[in-house]
């Protein structure tokens, strides 16, 4: 979706503000926000693509006014409600009022190291051979889906070159919506800065994205 998350090339946000010796957490609640987000995700009711889509579906004014941990928590509330774990009445009361759906699993403290060390690999076998090979000229599609996609607006309808054929990966555009993993080949595609930004582009700039096969057509 053309939501607030799609930031590449947007203007007006001001300078980057690196913080010297930045701590991992700026408040105690950020620690809990990280942990609540990860333990709730470990219930197995949604995947990473659905959670990303919940975050980018926040109202743009809310998204831009929120820190990233605030975005996480606001989206987590949406996911918990959607999947029947938490109700509006629970949230209003600040304690359980309504019964919850049954989770697939509950992450216990003793299992955390193994779960974090394993992660969630997204590579999958793809039945068909890769359509493109390194060096192939391609054009990204121009589309504006209302659902989740990982093709940024700045890279739509642009000519680029396949630099590397990666692996088969879960397709976020369907997986975010419960429509299956439908794995596709992923490619690293490089674009000249001038192809993306046109007049005035930095002549020394090359930008790459990682693109699923269905984002690409031969050029």
């Amino acid at each position, binding site marked *: 979706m053309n939501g607030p998350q799609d930031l590449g090339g947007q203007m007006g*946000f001001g300078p980057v503000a690196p913080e010297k010796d930045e701590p991992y957490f700026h408040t105690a609640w950020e620690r809990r926000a990280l*942990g609540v987000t990860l333990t709730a995700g470990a219930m197995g009711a949604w995947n990473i693509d659905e959670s990303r889509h919940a975050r980018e579906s926040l109202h743009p004014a809310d998204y831009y006014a929120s820190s990233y941990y605030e975005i996480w928590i606001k989206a987590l509330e949406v996911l918990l409600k959607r999947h029947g774990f938490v109700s509006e009445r629970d949230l209003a009361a600040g304690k359980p009022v309504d019964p919850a759906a049954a989770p697939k699993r509950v992450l216990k403290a003793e299992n955390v190291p193994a779960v974090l060390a394993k992660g969630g690999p997204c590579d999958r076998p793809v039945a068909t051979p890769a359509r493109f090979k390194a060096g192939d000229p391609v054009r990204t599609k121009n589309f504006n889906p209302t659902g989740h996609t990982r093709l940024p607006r700045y890279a739509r309808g642009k000519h680029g070159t396949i630099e590397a054929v990666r692996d088969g990966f879960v397709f976020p555009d369907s997986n975010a919506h419960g429509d299956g993993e439908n794995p596709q080949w992923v490619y690293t595609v490089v674009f000249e800065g001038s192809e993306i930004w046109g007049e005035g582009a930095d002549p020394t700039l090359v930008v*790459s994205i990682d693109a699923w096969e269905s984002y690409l057509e031969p050029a």
Partner: protein
Amino acid sequence: MSHDHDHDNELDPFAARVRALETILTQKGLIDPAAIDVIVDTYETKIGPRNGARVVAKAWSDPAYADWLKRDATAAIASLSYTGRQGEHMQAVFNTEDTHNLVVCTLCSCYPWSVLGLPPVWYKAPPYRSRAVIDPRGVLEEFGLTLPADKKIRVWDSTAELRYLVVPMRPEGTEGWSEEQLAELVSRDAMIGTGLARQPA
């Protein structure tokens, strides 16, 4: 941003909101608060840029390892026991005399947790995410880094599940240094591309 306070108090509405959510989920038996403690401890004390610095130092010291890192970063990094969440699929990109690499996630906050730990606030915030792809030189200036005008800049937008680690160039004057000494020169920012390796004192 709302990180302009350095502690929680009863009046902070967002702290109360997070606490309420944790309470509800815990009392419903959906999460284990002790698991949260372990997660926080892991990312506050165990997993951080020291991991990535060891990878870089080894690549500087051992050409065979550098070659492996180039070909199969996931396996080469796993050989040092750095695996797991947000590092499942790794790609190492090497700075050269000609090209400087810079990593961003314009769409969210993708970052190689297994080698760099949790991302800094600026990496997840709109100024960096919006400008890294269109004005990388301007962004780098804000980090105090001015690149030569003819240096090529390659920006890697992490739009899929590959996570990128920049391998900065080894500083001059470090011949014969141990991997431990070399790792001290490798900052988090150098491995994102918003900095270079430190010069030896």
